[in-house]
């Protein structure tokens, strides 16, 4: 950790916050605080400089225009690249996941991504809208992923990254795999407040950021009931 407090940066809420993306910031802060870890949440608008010394960066979803603009500004700023260079944690969802890759499509045009995650996104034949579930890569030791997806893209995972999960319900990257994982960068099509249904993923991000391999467990009665309900609704 950079200082005593865990610094969590939510990037560009003015551009990338279409689907309750603030939830991931709130959930990480909540889960850290309940373990006595101090948290400093920081919201960085697209006309502000991206700090390169934070511990966790969150990149949310958005419409095509804002997505392309966000990618341009993040590339020009360079702060996120420097942060990733020192192994900061990044959690990116939906449009944010796509723009972490090499390239993506927005408003019918191919756009350059941040090139921090070895994925390439293009357009699919149909829009993927609905419940998404999958078995997460066993190396991460996490229970099933559950979320809601709403995107028109299809994403191809290159050799530098690993798919986050194998799809059991929904489309994800391409109907077979979902999301991607590379070092301490994690991307997913489970959009918006994805961590609300996946507290174990939230804790993985916190473990990566704090270097503490054994976070004390929390009372997850409500997230567990939500997970059980959602997974049985689609199972």
């Amino acid at each position: 950790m950079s200082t005593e407090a865990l610094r969590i940066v939510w990037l560009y809420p003015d551009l990338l916050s279409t689907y309750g993306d603030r939830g991931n910031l709130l959930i990480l802060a909540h889960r850290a605080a309940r373990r006595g870890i101090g948290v400093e949440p920081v919201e960085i608008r697209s006309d502000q400089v991206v700090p390169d010394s934070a511990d966790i960066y969150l990149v949310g979803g958005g419409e095509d225009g804002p997505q392309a603009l966000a990618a341009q500004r993040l590339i020009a700023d360079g702060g996120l690249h420097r942060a990733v260079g020192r192994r900061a944690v990044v959690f990116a969802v939906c449009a944010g996941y796509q723009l972490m890759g090499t390239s993506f499509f927005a408003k019918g045009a191919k756009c350059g991504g941040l090139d921090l995650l070895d994925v390439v996104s293009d357009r699919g034949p149909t829009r993927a809208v609905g419940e998404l579930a999958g078995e997460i890569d066993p190396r991460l030791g996490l229970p099933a992923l559950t979320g809601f997806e709403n995107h028109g893209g299809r994403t191809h995972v290159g050799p530098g990254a690993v798919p986050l999960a194998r799809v059991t319900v929904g489309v994800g990257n391409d109907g077979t795999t979902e999301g991607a994982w590379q070092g301490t960068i994690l991307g997913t099509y489970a959009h918006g407040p994805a961590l609300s249904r996946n507290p174990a993923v939230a804790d993985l991000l916190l473990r990566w950021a704090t270097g503490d391999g054994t976070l004390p467990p929390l009372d997850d009665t409500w997230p567990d009931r939500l997970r059980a309900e959602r997974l049985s609704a689609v199972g």
Partner: protein
Amino acid sequence: MTQPEHRLPLRTKLATTVSKGAAALSRATGRGDGSVIGGRIGLMIDPNLLANLAAGRHVALVSGTNGKTTTTRLTAAALGVLGEVATNSLGANMPTGHTSALAKAGRTPYAVLEVDEHYLAQVLAATRPVAVALLNLSRDQLDRAKEVAMMAQLWRDALAAHPEVHVVANADDPMVVWAARDATVTWVAAGQRWHDDSWVCPECGSHIERSGPSEWWCTGCTLRRPAPQWTIKDGSVVDPAGGPHPVRLQLPGRVNLANAATALAVAAHFGVRVPDALPRLAQVTSIAGRYATVVRGGRTIRLLLAKNPAGWLEAFDMAEEAPTLLAINARDPDGLDTSWLFDVDFGALRGRQVLITGDRAYDLAVRLEVNGVPFAHVRSFGEGVDAVPPGRLEVIANYTAFQDIRAELDRVN
């Protein structure tokens, strides 16, 4: 204005008769309130039924993400000064609902129709309105609805195709202003508590800056808040001549005062004087159960409908400090995605007894836990009523949860 003599085509007459019969049957059998089925059957017999039924009437349309049912009701009340008004006051706001409403009303010189945002272009073309009121645009049922910028574009295109239509629009919503700016517009300072869908200029993509309670402007182009002709000040609606009119409503919240201002602005375009309309606005109580108060088991229960983040913020503004039941579903009419719960700050409810219910109560439970709002889960509305002490109970529910509760209360209006 006088009504031109207008003869309905034979097919339209038949469709109208069958439509009314189906609606009556729907109500009589308890299957629905008849506000959609009649129109659906009528349109099968005469595809031009809506246009034929609208012809010869002076029509006003009301659209927007929030407040359209209430504003439609208020506008219909105001136009009542001039003559009989047909309206779809049950909130059935797609062409089937418009058709049912006009068929049921028979011939009236005026009509005020609430229009689902997605259908504005189609209904503009069919009904050739005198005026259209545009309230606001914000995220709503995103897994199905058009995203906000796309919706603004649809509106802009629809208005461009009908330059003869007079627009009454909210000067405080950048997306609405952009959609309407090339039309002939009366601007109303109707407010927009919710800003999170209008930080990016729909014209040029630059950042939209805000200052004070209502000023906003694009940092990259000429889009900015137009000077409103109608404003709200200290519980009064101020008309373009500067005359303040104290407005007494039975509906709560600042947002309903703004809805009244919009209704008055539309009515003024039809020639209604504000003082003539005000007593009629004051008679409007609940609308299809919205704001209805019901006494049950010693509890005075008030129903507030909130369908999206902007609507929830307005509901918290209206709700009294009292035990509060929140009910959340995610069925088709609600949108299947509950992500929006994290766009709403429920912190305003801290300190109240909060109960949660509905199909998706667990999504709300996780949200409230993270929000630091203590709550208890109840399995049904009835259990929630029993769980609070005698006295006031505020109920805030999204669309189908609201309808479920209304049904339990015998379709309260």
